[in-house]
């Protein structure tokens, strides 16, 4: 760098309009009119871009939008058991879960919160969930004025399921994207390990 010599630098001379020509151009907006020509031309042609708020493009299947907690159709409750795997896997640490012991000593999910502003829509939470209890819906329009609105609580997340995954949509979503995981741990034919007590209960204490 130090070797660079001054004579290597070529100084270009800038040609500038001077005098009357420049004055006239300024007075008659010549440059602006030149620019507006294209605008005027396209004003009367068919638009090439999508007219977003009026015209919405349907999300591609599997689009990763706002979260929802899956509602179990039988119990009408959230499927989530509060295992915390989604919170563990989440790279931006935006899932917070508080669980406690219920009356029958079961695990109860007291709070399930996603701070969607921090979410990066990787869907690792969906992948981690052993119960297919959390999804990313196709809904993406949730701009707001209040930061607090972006803290999705358990109730809001369940509402999201009802709103955006209603009908068979949710089921199809899991079938299509998360394959066997959606089967709620149903026993694959060759895996006796998963059969558990519920299926073939043998009372070993009275087995004589």
């Amino acid at each position, binding site marked *: 760098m130090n070797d660079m010599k001054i004579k290597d630098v070529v100084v270009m001379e800038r040609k500038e309009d001077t005098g009357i020509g420049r004055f006239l151009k300024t007075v008659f907006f010549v440059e602006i009119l030149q620019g507006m020509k294209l605008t005027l031309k396209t004003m009367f042609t068919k638009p090439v871009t999508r007219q977003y708020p009026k015209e919405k493009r349907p999300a591609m299947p599997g689009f990763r939008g706002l979260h929802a907690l899956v509602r179990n159709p039988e119990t009408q409750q959230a499927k989530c*058991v*509060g*295992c*915390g*795997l989604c*919170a*563990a896997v989440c790279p931006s640490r935006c899932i917070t*879960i*508080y*669980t*406690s*012991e*219920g009356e029958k*000593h*079961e*695990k*109860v999910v007291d709070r399930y919160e996603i701070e969607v502003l921090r979410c990066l829509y990787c869907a690792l939470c969906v992948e981690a969930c*052993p*119960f297919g209890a959390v999804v990313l819906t196709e809904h993406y329009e949730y701009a707001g004025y209040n930061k607090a609105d972006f803290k999705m609580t358990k109730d809001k997340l369940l509402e999201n399921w009802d709103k955006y995954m209603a009908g068979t949509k949710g089921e199809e979503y899991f079938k299509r994207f998360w394959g066997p995981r959606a089967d709620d741990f149903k026993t694959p034919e*060759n*895996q*006796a*390990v*998963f*059969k*558990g*007590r519920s*299926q*073939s*209960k*043998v*009372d*070993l*204490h009275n087995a004589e």
Partner: protein
Amino acid sequence: MIKITIDGIEVQTDREITILEAAKQVGIEIPTLCTFKNLSPSGSCRMCLVEIERLSRPQTACTVKITDGMVVRTNSEAIMRARKAVLEFLLINHPLDCPVCDKAGECILQDLSAKYGAAAGRFKEGKRTNPVSFEDPVIVRDMQRCILCTRCVRTCDDLQGAFAISVINRGSHSLIEPFSGGRFDCEYCGNCLSACPVGAITSKLHRHTYRPWYIERQVETICGHCGVGCTLTLQMRENTIIRVIPDFEKGLNSGMLCVMGRFGYDYTEHEERLRSPLIRKDGELVPVSWEEAVEFTAWRLKELVKKYGGGAVAGIASGRCTNEDNYMLQKLIRYVLGSNNIDSAARLFYRPAVSYLERMFGQGITANLIPGIANSDGVFVAGGDPTTINPVLGIAVRSVWKKGGKVFVVGKSGGLRSNIKHELNHAEGAGALVLTWILAKVYEKKNFISENSIIDKKLSALKVPDMDMLVRVGVSPEALQYTADELVRLKNPVVIIGPETVLYGNGSKNLFLLGALNYVLNGRLFVLMDEPNTQGCLDMGCSPGVLVGGRPVELETFGHKMENTAGMKTPEGTGLNLFEMINGANSGSIKAMFVMGENPVFNIPDKKKVESALQKLEFLAVSDIFLTETASLADVVFPASAWSEKDGTYTNLERRLQRLRKGTMSSRGRADWKILADICKALGMKESYTDVKSVWDEISRISSVHSGVRYESLIGRGGIWPYGGEPLRGIEGDFEVEGLEDMPELPGFAQSGRVILKEDKSLIHSSSLSRYSPALMGVASEPLLMINPVTAQSLGLSDNERVVITSDKGTAVAILRADRGMPEGVAALSNTFKDNGFRSIVGYTIDPTLKSLNITDRVVTIERAKQL
């Protein structure tokens, strides 16, 4: 030198270690399930199988010792298959409920399955059903998940020494069950819980709330319940302690905790915690700002000192507060207000006992290391049950027995019942009699080099009771003979002294006898300490007659040091002790008192007297975490921060200085030293302190024992006595033994219908603090009256009945529990529960020699409580 090859790596060692240990040394991981930190190998899970050349079958690495020339392979295909097979077998019965299991995330079975994997099981049979029990207050037992590694059983037997659980049934029916049936009803130390590799035994406190990745912070700190000072780790989520776990690598407890340490942390979250300073206005305590409370206190103290002189002020320090807190209190009382009237509840037993023994043998005589107890070949215990007062020290005593050493207990054997050969239980008040006989016999038989003419002279003056007398107080000649014979044989004995040696009279004689016994045996002395920092409280000069560093006030050089360093004058005179302060308050010579973290109304006998004395004060300031019986009498109450909310140092019973670390933020109170420093400041103190370290720096400049000890260096062995300072060795001169040459009297036996009451220390509770812990209250929720079953029967009372105990001083209600360990005619009540404390219904006198507590008015009547 043994040379072996593991996976092609050569290992050389000169010790006969197992393959597992050898592999670990060269960084080869062999998976294990039934091997655990301090437990001896059991070889039952087969997870650690390795191939050894020239042996046809795989061997368990955890049990096979290495031999020269051995060639081991840990990663062959066959071994991988074997590991997978072991896991597949385990998963036949192990439920797959990881999502709702509290262990998930730190479960060894889960980790190994993920690593070696048994994805598809081939068993078509269903899983066995085993019981899940929620009956226990702090432990949940889910035997579905048990993999029968027996780590819990071995922990309970070999380490805790409680023998509470065992494997029952056979084959696939096997499971772990407490001997008492469904409930554990054990010592609830929870050490089995940290040993369980899966979620079969878990803590109830954080059941279903916990995941390892929910933990946001963890700090290593010191248990605040007793004088052992176990190292433990607090794990926090947000600002709440989720759980407490032991640290297996650090601390004197090597991974063991007791019920108080492990489960008794939740009092810090109690809703009755004080949240704001209170000042009495028109007879009511009303919340005020910190500034107002500090200003008001400073103003009142100044005014009273001006009016009545410094001698009218007194301070009560606490063994529950840190060294820095105590230092600051003595600074306020001594150097800012100019009064030597400072004392603490250490006065009741610990301080007189330790200073008496130090008078005999020099400063630091009780500074022996607790882990060292386990290396002893015999332990002599008198005056209290170490397994309840200092549980982890008690475990060390049990381990002596485990290794074949001898344990002797004079008095109720309690938690050491299965470790002794003969009971040396005696009628109430006959302790000195038994000790005198044992000491005399040992003195007669033992060849020892006498070095201390004062003690020798006293020893030869002892009057020895004859066997007849001893039989009359209920001790068998056989037991006595055995004890004396075995004691003489010991090479490395330990003598443990508990509070009962002092509390019920004959204090100086009992202490002399035990001190002399230790001297003759050439053993190590331990004095049980029920609060975490009683020793530190004394070291900080919170006792009349003693200045910072444990120097007697008479040693003038020390006074100069304080004057030079802090520019403050040590007041004249020795000051009043705790009892004299109470009397002073009663008679009007004490006008103002500052009580820090102590509850004298509940903890000093004769509640009515103490209460009325404190009421007569013109000004009483209390700093505490709860509105205790004492705080509710105060003019100003400062909310203090609790144990988990402050930094500082504790000095445990072996005089180990350890760092307490802040875990949770305190929104409720301030550290006591801070409160006191603010008051000192308002009274014109020059120094200011930015943090607890600056307080420590000042201590280490002034105290001759702590000199040069840096706050940061208090880790590991950094804080072990004598810390590099200069302790006072060899205090010259004679000491007094009250009634040395008298033949101990035979105690008068109780008349029928009347019973002698003693203080009981429950394992579950640490004085009155633990009554605020829901977990500990869940284990023991009501005051119990322990009584000999024969006595109970003669009173017409039966087990589990609600009874009323009446003495001359008051009444208490408790549940009767028959306990064969109690001598006839004696009952014991703890000093824990509000309105039903032992000390509230007895009186006291002051021991003339020791100036310690001597509990009187112990004769009570016990009746069935009226049905409500």
